[in-house]
Each structure stands twice: as C-alpha cells, then as structure tokens.
C-alpha cells in the first residue's frame, strides 16, 4: 500500500526478477569456481585416492553449469531487450536527444549528490539501461571466451553429441582469439592464452561493475526515498504522486 502522496509503479516483471536472482547466484558461483580453476586456492584434505575425489573436476563442472545457465538467461535477456512487451530496453540506449539528455541528467544527479533531479524516476532511465547493457556485453564476452576455452578440450573434433558441436563452437568463438590478442597485446600470432587472460580480466571488470551496481541501487533508495531497492524483490517502487507524469 502506498503512503499518502506516493504512487506505486511497476518496474520489473516476475520473469525479470527471477532472471536477476538467478544471475546473482550464478555470478557468485562463477567467480568462486573460476578463481579456483585459475589458481586452486584451497587444499583437498580428503584422505582418498585421486580417483575418488574430484575437487577440480567439481569446480569445473560447477563453472560450466552456471555457464549454461548464463547462456540461457542471456538469450532470454537479449530477446526481452528488443521484444519485451513491458519495456523494451533498446529504446533507452538509442542516442536520441531525449535519451542523451536523460542520461546526462541522471549522471548529474549522481555527482551533485542528489541536489539536482530533473528527470522522471518512475521508469527505467537511460543511464541505468546503458549501465545494464554494459553488463550484458561483458557477460556475452565471458560466454564467447569461455566457450572458446571449452572447445580446446574437444581437440579431436568429436564430442558425445556429435562433431557439429565443436565445429559450431569454433565457428562462433574463434574470432575471440585475434580480438583477445589485440586487447591483451600479442606478437604476430595471437594465442589461446590471450583468450584466457582476457576471460580472467573481464571477471574483474564484472566484479567492479557489481560493486558499483549495488552501491548505486542502495544510494538511490536512501536519497531518492522511493524504495528503489524493492524493485528487484516485489517488482514495484513508489514515486511521489506529483512527480509522476
């Protein structure tokens, strides 16, 4: 129930909220297992012969399972980005005059510590949408570089589900080798290690992204006093009735 002078607005559908929390859990698992794969940071203190304990194997398995979940949610998010019946996010990142103005206003609001607030905060603004788009681009890069590393294990060109699977992965992800080589800086021939370095560094970019994301949502909640943090739980927030246009 809305307090006097406040109106309740719907911001996230149940599907969007489920995806959000699935992504949160997947991200925690991906980082924890990814760091173990990179440099195993705990010892296996199990007095069993090697064949009975699969500590690295389970970490890799966990990493791949969340990778598959990310694959699926990314496809859904990409679909919603353009075709959602609720709010089509792509409309908010087009560099139209209106979007640029809104972007600048929201940014000004952030750096003037909420002294200036000249935009409508009842709907998802373009600053937020751009910020989320960056996240999904980083995640897409993780997917492509991750699948490139995954296909190295299928060196024979065969897989239990057929030769089409590694062939498709090569077709879809081989471009990440020269692109990573360019980003990381390689000699005349880029190498698959460039892809791995890039996958690892991108993890840090994502973690940094997450830290600011959490801070900013809490900050909005405190200073705007519109209950923004509740969006991701109940799907709604409140705006002052006189502001709602």
């Amino acid at each position, binding site marked *: 129930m809305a307090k006097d002078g406040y109106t309740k607005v719907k911001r996230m559908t149940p599907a969007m909220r489920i995806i959000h929390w699935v992504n949160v859990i997947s991200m925690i698992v991906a980082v924890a297992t990814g*760091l173990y794969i*990179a*440099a*195993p940071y705990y*010892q*296996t203190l199990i007095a069993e012969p*090697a*064949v*009975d*304990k*699969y*500590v*690295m*194997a389970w*970490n890799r398995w966990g990493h791949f399972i969340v990778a598959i979940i990310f694959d699926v949610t990314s496809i859904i998010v990409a679909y919603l980005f353009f075709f959602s019946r609720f709010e089509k996010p792509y409309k908010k990142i087009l560099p139209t005059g209106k979007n640029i103005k809104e972007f600048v206003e929201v940014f000004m609001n*952030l750096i003037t*510590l*909420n*002294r200036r607030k000249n935009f409508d905060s009842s709907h998802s603004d373009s600053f937020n949408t751009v910020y989320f788009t960056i996240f999904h681009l980083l995640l897409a890069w993780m997917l492509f570089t991750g699948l490139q590393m995954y296909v*190295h*294990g*299928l*060196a*024979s*060109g*065969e897989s239990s589900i057929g030769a089409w699977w*590694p062939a498709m992965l*090569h*077709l879809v992800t*081989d*471009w990440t*080798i*020269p692109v990573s080589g360019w*980003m*990381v*800086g*390689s*000699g*005349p*021939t*880029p*190498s*698959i*290690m*460039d892809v*791995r*370095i890039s996958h*690892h*560094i991108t*993890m*840090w*970019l994502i*973690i*940094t992204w997450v*830290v*600011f994301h959490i*801070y900013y949502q809490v*900050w909005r909640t*405190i*200073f705007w006093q519109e209950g923004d943090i509740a969006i991701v739980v109940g799907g709604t927030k409140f705006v002052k009735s006189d502001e709602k246009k």
Partner: protein
Amino acid sequence: MGMDKQESVKKLFTAQSAKVDTNRGDAYYEALYAKCQERLDALKKLTPLNNRRDFMTTIEDEGLERRDFLKWASATTAMLMLPASFTPLVAEAATLMNRVPVIWIELSDCAGNSEALLRSDGPKIDEIILDIISLEFHETLQAASGHQAEKQMEEAMEHFKGKYLLFVEGAVPLGMDGQFGTIGAKGETFVDHLHRAAEGAAAVVAVGSCATYGGIPAAAPNPTDAVGVMDVVKGKPIINIPACPANPSNMVGVILHFVLTGSIPELDSLLRPKFAFGYRIHDNCERRAHFDAGEYVEEWGDEGAKNNFCLYKMGCKGPMTFNNCSIIRYNEGVNWPIGVGRGCIGCSEPDFWDKYAYERPMANANIKAPTGGVEKTVDQFGLGLLTAAGIGIGIHAAASAIAGKKEHEKEEA
C-alpha cells in the same frame, strides 16, 4: 604487425579443429596406396644425392636390428594416421629418405633444432633417418664457408629447383630493414636470404617455435621486430613444426609424409600438422587424475612432488598446449618434461616465452598491461581496479551523507 587485414579476416573464420578423419573408406586408402607406391618406385630410380649412406647398413652399424626398424615403421604409420597396411610403404619410404633434397637455413636461432636432429648419443631410428636425408645445404654442418658456401647453396637451389624442401630454423628479424641479422660474405639480410631460398622450394618447413611464430627473439620487447616464416613467406605451402626444440619424430613424420605421398600432411589453423599437434598435452598427461582430484604440487620437492601430483600450480600450461609429447615423448619414448616432474611451458604455442613459460599459474604471473608498461598479475590488476572503485564509492558515499545531513538541518531550522 605483419599480416594484412584481408588475411587476418580470412584467418578468423578458417580455424579448423584438430580432427583428422582416420577412416575415409577403403576406396580412398586404395587410391592413396597406389599413388604412394608409384611415387616410391619413381624415387627408387633416382640415385641418392649427396648422401650415399645406405639406410639398412647404417641401422646395423648403429647396433640396431631389423626388428627394431619394423617396430618403428608400424609406430610411425600409426602416428601418421594411416592404416596398418601402409607399414611396408612407410618402411620403404624411410630407406628412400636420401632421395629428397633438403636445404636447411638458419636465421635468428640457437641451432637447438639442428642439435635435436643430430642428437648423437645413441642415435635412434628417427635420428638416423635425419642423418640419411639428403641435406644439400646446412650452414652449421657443412665444411664450406664464405663464398664457397654461398656457391654451394646456389648450386643446390638451381639443381633441385621446385623439388627441395626448405627447412628454416630461427625467426626473421624485420627491424631496421632486416639489418639485425645478416649472413654470408655479401652480408645478405635474413629476410632476403629466406625469400631467395623459399623461391624454388617445393614447400617450406618452419622448425621450432622461433621459425613458426618468432619465438624467443620475438619475446617482449622484441627489439629486432622478429616474426615467423609464415608472416614473411607467401604463396608457398608452409608447414610449421613448433616446440622448443621441435621433436625429431615430428620432423621425420613431415619428411616421410612428403617422401611417401609427395604432398604435405593435413594442417591445423596455425599450419601445424594435425598428426602431431592435434592433441592437447593435458588430455594425455599421466598426472591428469591428480588435476581433477585437486592434488597439486605446491612447491618443488614437497610430498605432492614425491607422489607425482599435478603440476598445475607450478605453472604447467598443459591445458592450453597442443603437442604430441605427452604421447610420443622424447628420445624415442624415454621420457618427457612432465614425466620428469616439471610443468609444460607451452613451447609449441604462439608467444610461449611471454605468455606460457613463467612457471606459475597465469593468474599469478606478471602480465604486461596493453600499453606495454607496468607488469602486474591479472589479479593485482583486478584488485587495483576494485580498490579504485571502492575509494570512489567511499568518497561519494561520505559526501552524500554530509550533503544529506546539511539538507536535513536546513529543513529543521
């Protein structure tokens, strides 16, 4: 650097998996068999060139038996992914190795691959074969020098035009118009030397990682602007046999394939023969069970090391390296790096010196920033980024709190 745009776009979409079709049906192998036989018959009619040593007598001189040779022939047939029925042909091809002229040039290198090829301590069949090949020109091995050597090379190139295999060892320095490396009495640059030698070659074989990708001379900061043969020679079949040094078995495999079929073996996207580089070290490593179990050597000589645990945390790059040493090993199968208790340094991959050989997991190794300057590990870089973000957020939060408080006081007043 080097590669033009069109070429790199083409490369982007043509990477092939390492898959070699090992069962192409009887019709294919019958046709191939006939073709190989025809070729061997033709080669038999030629008299040996420079090298007149007879293969079988050499084998016996070295104290090996015919049975050893036949065992070798069947193993090599399998390595080349041919059906067992080809074994007699492979054996015959081996005895005809001296019919195919080889010119071997050295550029920015340490002669380590020549060294591998000539390993004289109890030569095994692979090494004997490499002794027998018709080395028409090899700067390090021949007696001739100066103008005389130059003349010899010119004669060999002229005489065997379009027929010889050119083996190149070492990187090609391109900086300062190639003046970082010159050779011969005329002071010809390595680039020009390579172009001249490649001109009349049937195929160019780059041996070792330096000739393949630039290798050690191309390691950061690459002062001579060194690149590999494939970055310089265009319009010729090129076969790369990287590794440091290249495994003599793989050199023999390539030459044998050429002697036998007159063509080059199937190659992967880095132009490496798939029969040798179609395997990942990690997938054929005897320590793999320890990897999956999470049992790692933590420091040299610890309990894990004594129990042959996985070398991943000591920087093994087997998971990122394609080569067949985990299968065929070195020195006729005696042992290989991981077998003796040290990690793989990825010697057959591009940029191996900078990106694989640091003997620590990648996450703990110093990596150059794209700008080339600071060296930090990826995790230090990441934590730095995170700290910067944390400081920014802290300042913003504190400022917001103070500003909020002032606002509040104003309202109350």
